[in-house]
């Protein structure tokens, strides 16, 4: 491991495998996922439903419960204490994959160093406890403050997420808030302990566009204020373009491409990424086209059902650049094609077959 790089890297996920053992078979929800999250940066994770985006996040939080199990891989968390960017600080490397999910060490990380904002603001909060009580729970637990101090911190936090009348909202129940306000409360809860990594799992998918714009704006401002890294999970490429600095594209439990935001849009390399980008209706074309029967590009076929395990590259049955005898036989390696540009595809591997044999 390169010691020099360790200062910018916050989390490194290596070959993570999370499987679900069901009566119908084994679902390989995450199947060899490689990711690096840099300090204070935003990594966007895109992919279609069922590709393992959320399960990667849940694995990192160690929230996978039976029949799910992390069966392999490492999740290295480079802990320098909270938000200390100073280079002199000693870095402690914790392998989250090896921790006991209910143990003291993991509990001191979850909700404290790494916290999460869930998709549905309605289900992420308990309907029978006040908003304030739910936010102060984490503050009391991780910061060792008493109830009164925690209330102060929580109200301050609510104000930071631009919640109108934070001292009143503290005593409100979640049902009294609108969707956008509820999501603000959830964000306040997640940020209350100043985490070094915030996992946002489709935080705006359930919201309207104008509310979504408010929340995205808020998250960017809060990242500037608090300096945390964000792992932003979404299926919306528009949101990715706005939020992320780096992007990982997932397909069937694997990261198929990871690079910076500009390369993903202007120089996508994996055929799946290219297909995904070309299948969104482009506003420019739509507005200028007189002919309304213009067809969209499609990725042929559909995502195979989760129990199947394909030989070779998991994308090969749908791939337009499929090479017979290679893509359906050998699993592609994760190759580096450019500085900070990684692709899992035989097209970019100079000698795909030889390596496999050797």
């Amino acid at each position, binding site marked *: 491991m390169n010691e020099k790089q360790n200062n910018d890297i916050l989390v490194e996920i290596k070959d993570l495998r999370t499987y679900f053992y069901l009566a119908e078979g084994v679902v390989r929800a995450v199947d060899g996922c490689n990711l690096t999250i840099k300090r204070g940066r935003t990594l966007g994770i895109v992919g279609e439903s069922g590709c393992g985006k959320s399960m990667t996040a849940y694995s990192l939080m160690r929230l996978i419960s039976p029949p799910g199990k992390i069966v392999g891989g490492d999740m290295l968390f480079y802990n320098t204490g909270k938000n200390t960017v100073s280079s002199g600080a000693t870095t402690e490397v914790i392998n989250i994959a090896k921790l006991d999910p209910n143990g003291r060490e993991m509990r001191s990380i979850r909700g404290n160093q790494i916290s999460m904002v869930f998709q549905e603001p309605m289900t992420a909060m308990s309907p029978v406890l006040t908003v304030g009580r739910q936010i102060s729970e984490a503050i009391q637990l991780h910061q060792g403050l008493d109830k009164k101090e925690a209330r102060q911190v929580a109200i301050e936090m609510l104000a930071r997420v631009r919640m109108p009348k934070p001292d009143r909202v503290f005593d409100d129940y979640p049902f009294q808030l609108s969707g956008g306000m509820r999501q603000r409360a959830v964000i306040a809860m997640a940020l209350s302990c100043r985490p070094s990594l915030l996992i946002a799992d489709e935080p705006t998918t359930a919201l*309207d566009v*104008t509310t979504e714009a408010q929340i995205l704006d808020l998250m960017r401002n809060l990242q500037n204020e608090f300096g945390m890294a964000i792992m932003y999970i979404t299926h919306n490429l528009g949101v990715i*373009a706005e939020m992320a600095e780096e992007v990982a594209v997932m397909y069937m439990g694997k990261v198929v491409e990871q690079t910076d935001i500009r390369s993903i849009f202007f120089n996508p390399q994996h055929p799946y990424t290219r297909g*995904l980008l070309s*299948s*969104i209706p482009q506003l*420019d074309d739509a*507005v200028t086209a007189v002919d*309304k029967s213009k067809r969209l590009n*499609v990725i042929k076929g559909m995502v195979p059902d989760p129990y199947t395990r394909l030989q070779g590259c998991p994308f090969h049955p749908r791939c337009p650049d499929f090479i017979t005898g290679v893509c359906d036989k050998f699993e592609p390696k994760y190759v580096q094609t450019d500085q900070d540009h990684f692709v899992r595809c035989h097209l970019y591997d100079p000698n795909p077959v030889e390596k496999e044999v050797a």
Partner: protein
Amino acid sequence: MTNQVNQAEPLLEVDALKKYFPIKRGFLKRVVGHVKAVDDLSFRIMEGETLGLVGESGCGKTTAGRSILRAINPSSGRVIFRDPVLGKVNVPELEKEQLIAVRRNMRMIFQDPYASLNPRMTLLDIVGAPLRALGIARGKELEDRVAEMLRVVGLRPEYMRRYPHAFSGGQRQRIGIARALAPNPKFLVCDEPVSALDVSVQAQILNLLQDLQKSMGLTYLFVAHDLSVVAHISNRVAVMYVGKMVELAPTSELFTNPLHPYTEALMSAIPRPDPRPREKRILLTGEVANPANPPSGCYFHPRCNYCIDICRTEEPKFEEVKPGHFAKCHRAHDLHLTGAVDIMKNQAAQSI
């Protein structure tokens, strides 16, 4: 335009359509107010045309679609539909038998492909249901028709005996489309048909809808909240806010020269799949107004950046500002708003 839009006579004419839901309180269920879900909607749809209907959740898009088909009874207003057999009819006033006859020609595609298919019915029963209910076909004939419909939407006729659980979201949406098309209708209300689907599947369904429109001569009212999807498929687009239509224009006109500040804000809010820096977006403050207790004057005035005195007191008229371009704003004539096209141009001018 390849799909023939008949400009001469509208297929559907909606006039002052209203749907109020009563709010009941207390033991006696006294009516204490109304949620004005759809409030005074008027528009026309030409034959072969696609009219997009956009707006945020709760603005009444779905209620409008349902009231037009009389899936729910509108409170007042007229919906004139040009039926190929019965001629011009006013849908809200139809007797049951006539309504059944008209329903052959106006049908609906639903948003959620999981909730809209009965899990205990086979595809044959699901797709055949309207044929049976409307007395169009039965027995072998029904089976043949279902097989044909499944082929039309890109499913194998052999799947006829299977249940919906065996199909993915995109395939289920195809089943829903086959069901809507089975009686060979003229007009379809598509209520967010792709918003529950993944991007790659969404593209497949949008293509299918366009192909079917061409081959079967369909007219769509396309309800959605995704502006790029609406722009892609619609000839004209209508924008709704709190039960009222605030703007209606041909697609390229709306996206180039929006006349209503709410349309401008919507366009500015859409996240665009382009990482180049963009100008500061217009962030609306506050929340969508409550349709049970709407603000005075223009419903949008508390969130509007261009609000003047008259907006607080007087409700603006929905008027034709330019030929074919309607807007409901006091300042429609003097504002110069930024459309999505300008945002894109500015963004494209940024260096990579």
